[in-house]
Each structure stands twice: as structure tokens, then as C-alpha cells.
């Protein structure tokens, strides 16, 4: 018999059942680690550290999960926050803006990138962090724009814009 996420969460909340929490981690570790892997531009060590922090935070804050949205959305929210804090420490957000400026300067550069047919993972790295997060959550993890806005703690319109803009850039990079 398999338990739903809600059953497992209830067991953790009622009796502090670590096995139930372990099952939740097993179920959700892959999307969370993959998401953080993309946010850290492929730095798997940092992504795993952040994922670990994410689940530890989830354990501590589980009582604040009210079950109104999907558990995954709530986890992505924590994961994004963890990444944001780490990025702030590394001033990556600032670099991001600069890199974005450097990467979009000429049509020739974009055309060259298209010819190179960067694979998807590489192309994703060239997006800004906000675009990357929106694309990964909405297009790869199946979150609705509303859910992504909730996880990323930003307005719905921003998510929609970032998805559109990110896709546009990916199309150019991948020539699809």
C-alpha cells in the first residue's frame, strides 16, 4: 500500500516519523536536485548542498505547509529561496544581469550559437536566473504559471514574461 504525500506529511507532523519524511525526500529529491542543478548552472555539489538544506528546512517548517498547493510547489519555493540566498552570497544575481547583457549583444553571436546547436542544458545556462527558474518549473516540471509564481514568490505576469522571454532565447540558441 502506498501512502500519498498528504498521508506522509500527516505522519511526520503527528509523530515526527522520520521514515515517512524519508519517503517524501525519496519521492521529491530528483525534481528538486534537477531544478537546483540548473539554477547553479550544473554545479552538482552546490546543488546537492542546497537540496539538502531545502529538505532540512522542509522538515523544520513542515507545520507551515497548509496543503493548499502541491507539496512539490512548496518544496520548489524553499529550494528557490535557498538558491537565492546562496546566490546573493556569491553576488551571482548581479553577475547574472551582466552576463545577460554580454550574451545578447549581436545577432551574429546569436546566429553562431544557433549554428553550434547548443544542447538544451547548455542553452538553459545562458538564460537569466529568473527565466531559467520559470522555464524549468513551468515547462519541465509541469507547474502552472500560478504555481510557479507562488514558488518563486513573484507576480504572475513576471513568470509569464520570463517563460516567454526564456523560450524565445532558447529557440534562438537551439534553432528550433
Amino acid at each position, binding site marked *: 500500500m502506498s501512502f500519498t504525500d498528504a498521508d506522509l506529511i500527516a505522519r511526520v507532523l503527528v509523530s515526527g516519523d*522520520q521514515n515517512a519524511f524519508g519517503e517524501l525526500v525519496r519521492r521529491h529529491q530528483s525534481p528538486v*536536485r*534537477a531544478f537546483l542543478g540548473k539554477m547553479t548552472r550544473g554545479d552538482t555539489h552546490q546543488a546537492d548542498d542546497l537540496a*539538502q538544506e531545502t529538505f*532540512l528546512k522542509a522538515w523544520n517548517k513542515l507545520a507551515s505547509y497548509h496543503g493548499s498547493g502541491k507539496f512539490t510547489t512548496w518544496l520548489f519555493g524553499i529550494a528557490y529561496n535557498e538558491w537565492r540566498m546562496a546566490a546573493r552570497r556569491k553576488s551571482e544575481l548581479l553577475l547574472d544581469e551582466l552576463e545577460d547583457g554580454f550574451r545578447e549583444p549581436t545577432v551574429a553571436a546569436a546566429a553562431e550559437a544557433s549554428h553550434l546547436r547548443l544542447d*538544451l542544458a547548455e542553452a538553459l545556462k545562458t538564460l537569466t536566473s529568473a527565466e531559467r527558474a520559470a522555464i524549468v518549473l513551468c*515547462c*519541465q516540471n509541469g507547474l502552472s504559471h500560478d504555481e510557479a509564481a507562488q514558488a518563486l514568490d513573484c507576480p504572475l505576469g513576471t513568470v509569464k514574461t520570463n517563460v516567454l522571454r526564456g523560450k524565445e532565447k532558447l529557440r534562438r540558441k*537551439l534553432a528550433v
Partner: protein
Amino acid sequence: MNPTPHHPPEAHDPLDALLREADDYVSDDGFTQRVLTQLPAPRRQTTLRPMLLSAAVLIGATLTLWLCPTSDLELTLLLKNWSAWNWNTLLTVVPVLAVLGSLSWGLWALVKDEH
């Protein structure tokens, strides 16, 4: 009328297909175990609380019976002659019952905590 598909314009978008099909599964490889070992130890309720509670109740019971105006009355006698109870009797019986109840609750909490 046909229902509107969830993402009609993107249904045949090759980029969407590419994003959806990207195999991003990350195998566990001991990750879950690492997280579990980092969890704070389950909060074990200390046995001190029910023990302190029981001790407090015992002290309270002793003091109540000692200071009670009718403490020389025998409880069995009182229970037999319940029709002759007056305010003084009640002042003895009610605290005694309350004390007994609190004691049982304290002991029950102690046993439950041990389990």
C-alpha cells in the same frame, strides 16, 4: 463543444517537446540517507515533567489534607454517610478527589511517556 486543451498553442511546439522530454531524473545515490542523518534527533519528551508533576501533586495532596479543617474525618465514613454531608465535608472530599484525579493523571502521563 470541444473542451479547450490545456496548452493548445504549445502542443506541437518542438521546444516544449524538447523541454518536456529532457530526461532530468537524478538518482538518489544515498541523498535521502544523507538528509535523514542530518535531521535533528526526534524530540524525546523528558520524563522529568510528569515526575515533577506527580511530586507537586503529592506535596499538594499532603498539604491539603493536613491543613484541611476536617482532616480528622475518615473518608470511608464520609462516603457511607453521604446524606449527612455539609460544607465542611465537601471541603474535604472535593480536594481529595481532585488530588486523586491529578495523581492518576500524572502517573498515566509518566507511564505513557515511558512507552
